[in-house]
């Protein structure tokens, strides 16, 4: 889910003051620390994701919002 989609979904749910920040790149090496990413999946990612994207496959964010 893209950041703008996440923000829009929060607004559609009724939240205000939506803020998304603290953005940290999340790469294949980060994913490999988690057992939910199997070795097979990590190998697949290394095979099909171009080298320039491997350090930032996703972005870890903090999302904040308030219920009015």
């Amino acid at each position, binding site marked *: 889910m893209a950041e703008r989609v996440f923000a829009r979904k*929060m607004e559609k*749910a009724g939240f205000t003051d939506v803020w998304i920040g603290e953005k940290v790149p999340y790469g294949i090496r980060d994913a490999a620390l988690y057992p939910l990413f*199997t070795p097979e999946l990590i190998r697949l990612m290394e095979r099909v*994701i171009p080298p320039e994207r491997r350090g930032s496959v*996703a972005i*870890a964010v*903090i*999302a904040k919002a308030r219920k009015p």
Partner: protein
Amino acid sequence: MDQDLLHQAEVKAAVRTAYEAIGSGGGEPVARRLYREEQLAGLPAGAIAWALGVGNPVLHAELRPGETVLDLGSGGGIDTILAAREVGPTGRAIGIDLLDEMVERARGHAREAGVGAWTEFRRGEMEDIPLPDGSVDVVISNGVINLSPRKSRVLAEIHRVLRPGGRLCVADLTVEEDLPAEILTSDAAWAG
């Protein structure tokens, strides 16, 4: 016949199966990347071993003593315990997780951390949170909402259980550029 055009049931089953299969979390390598030294101090080793988050929502949630905080997808309980420390014994920390065994594990960790008296864990799903309307001051979660095939439903449920003026503070993953099709169609990727 109902058709699950978005394969929601399939995605949910794949996530559950993967989650049931793991024997531990990311452990110290993950915990040390996400949490401050002072947060990790005094935490049970088991809570650290089961760290599976992608950020540090408690650090950003501005929790206050006396508040009721809900940790959605509480896993081994690390964020629930950190939140319980912040809200203190006049507050309440509630963790909800998909798996009974994880709920039991987190209960043990909370007791070991000395916050068991004002912390509780329940089995439940984030698309159908087992709490009344307007019963929570703050909702946190850590790397969990992205796993749901019904993210809008999850956010609607969070909105329902928050009291007016209540806050949401979650750590999660966003993806700005489509991943290759081989990954998007992998069951294992849905769970990660």
